[in-house]
């Protein structure tokens, strides 16, 4: 596989990029911090990536740069066949409630920018016969909860977009994988109370890689979250109003 990864320096993206490196995939890492990209590229190379691991400057907050970054990735990999986006924004609900600018930025990065990027990449892949788009949404997008509906709304939008992308491009050979992690112990969730069924990034990555290989449209990770969310989605709104979570 020749994959472009956005978010490979941290958390689940780091774990997933390592699995891809270890099986000899060719990788191009996109991100904002050149030093971190360089360090992760060295890590992935030592772990077996089909080198050299390319790095390109990229900012999800600057949509004008998307097309040039995908061009650069295409040049580095000789045409990529997968785009993996684990990057996103996360801020505690209280801060988002208080700070409209933070909220706008989060909605913009998690939904607008990610959708614009994936749309462009899907078109690019479709033009050359197909490929895979894998983006990380969240179980928070499956049902709005009062404690994190702002973050959840951004991911709900992304999930809906990815579902549509899957339907629209399936005939042109583009597979779309929407990953919906539950609570995973990473630096992003550090400091939050750890709920039951919390996952480790390495286990999530194994699951996601299998889904990428098979083209599974929706992946819950850890898998038990599929059933948890099935139950939570079934709760009537009157019940959601009464439970405090």
């Amino acid at each position, binding site marked *: 596989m020749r994959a472009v990864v956005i978010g490979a320096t941290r958390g689940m993206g780091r774990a997933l990029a390592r699995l891809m490196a*270890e099986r000899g995939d060719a990788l191009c890492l996109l991100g904002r911090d050149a030093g971190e990209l360089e*360090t992760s590229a*060295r*890590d992935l190379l030592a772990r077996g990536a089909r080198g050299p691991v390319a790095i390109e400057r990229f900012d999800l907050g600057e949509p004008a740069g998307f097309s040039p970054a995908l061009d650069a990735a295409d040049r580095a990999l000789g045409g990529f066949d997968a785009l993996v986006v684990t990057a996103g924004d996360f801020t505690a609900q209280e801060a988002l409630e208080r700070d409209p600018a933070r909220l706008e930025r989060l909605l913009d990065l998690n939904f607008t920018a990610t959708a614009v990027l994936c749309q462009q990449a899907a078109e690019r892949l479709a033009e050359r016969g197909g490929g895979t788009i894998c983006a990380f949404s969240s179980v928070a997008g499956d049902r709005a909860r009062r404690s994190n509906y702002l973050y959840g709304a951004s991911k709900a939008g992304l999930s809906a977009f990815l579902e549509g992308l899957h339907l629209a491009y399936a005939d042109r050979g583009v597979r779309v994988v929407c990953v919906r992690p539950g609570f995973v112990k990473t*630096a992003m969730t*550090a400091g939050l109370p750890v709920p039951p069924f919390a996952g480790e990034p390495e286990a999530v990555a194994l699951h996601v890689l299998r889904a990428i290989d098979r083209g599974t449209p929706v992946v819950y990770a850890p898998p038990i979250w599929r059933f948890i969310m099935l139950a939570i989605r079934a709760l009537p709104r009157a019940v959601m109003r009464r439970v405090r979570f």
Partner: protein
Amino acid sequence: MDVLKTPGVSLEPVAGWGRRPVEQGAVVRPERLLLPPGGRPVLLRGLGRSYGDAAVPATRGALVLETARADRVLAFDSERGTLTCEAGLSLAEILRVFLPRQWFPPVTPGTRFVTVGGCVACDVHGKNHHRDSSFGAFVDRLVLQVADGSLVECGPARERELFLATVGGMGLTGLITEVTLRLQPVESAWMVPEAEPVPGLGAMLDGLREAAKDWPYTVGWIDCLARGSGLGRGILIRGRHATRGEAPAGPPPEPRRIGVPLDAPEWLLSPVLMRGFNAAYYMKLAWPARGTTRPVPYHGFFYPLDAIDGWNRLYGRRGFLQYQCVVPRAAGAPAVAELLERLSASGAASFLAVIKDCGPESDAYLSFPLEGTTLALDLPYRGPRTETLVHELNATVIAAGGRVYLAKDAVTRAEDFARMVPRLPQWRRVREKWDPEHRFRSAQSVRVLGDTP
């Protein structure tokens, strides 16, 4: 406690592997190692496998920096086996990535769930100490973030004093951010073991010395409940890496890991049951290997306890102390015999103790091993009488010119530690130079070195 208002920080109970003492710490787990600005005290911690209070915060709510998420490989020279990595990389991960390429850690302790930074800070040793010395001997270079926030590179020939104070320095000289170490080439992931029952302490010590001539790995298991003429009886184990020709085809199966869901009740540790459990364990592990040279997976040889997640819970809610000391060769069998007699008289020890002969001591000031015999065992915690036993054992060790291992210690008094470690003043001098305010501190540094909490 402003630190708790920072995102990504939570107050959690922090303990060593022996599960006592426990202190609440404000824990951060960064993916990139960097001291927080502001110069406040910090406890550095890896995967928390040291047994006592070495990785326990000095005060309630103190900042704890866990390094295990900073685990990237920075470079690997596949000709020489030289690995440069962030200090949170674990030996388990090194084995997973590099053993298939036939490289093995040069020194390994009894668990692979330890970070490289922790291996340096404790200057860990393994079953090959008699031949290869301790972990620090294979470290070419360290990058340290010292108390004032600057990055300093040190090694055997560069900032040598800082290097010698950091190897075995229990994370008290600075945050180790990068390590360059030399892995050893092996031909397979399999080990050729040999086991031999020995009738007593004299035979055990002779056997270890004899085996040391030809075998890279040696260790003995001693039956702690045996007394009189049987004192020190046990099993002597020798091992070496299997050659390509000896190894079965393919890598060894991944170990099955089982978990311990609950703290064991204390009656489970009554002497009668413990004897039964340990005897079964001893038979299972030792007898099939007796006299045979059938290769076994490396993890079965080096890390039998890693197969049980959270085995430390088997010692019950009150936790346990691990005791490890070394006495110089000159003190010989009588000192070891005295320690074993005290233990067996107390009835407090686990059934098995590990005995091993060590090679020459390293130049690192606080490094534990010295040429002689080391003894390690678990003591289920039963209140002050367990601590009293440790102080009694320490008295014997001091009289013999030996010392205890800080990575396992939770009890030793400052004055006793000073008697055990003649190079302590040299270490203190280097520490004062780099960290005069003792920014890096732990519950252990308060207890053993007299740091202000």
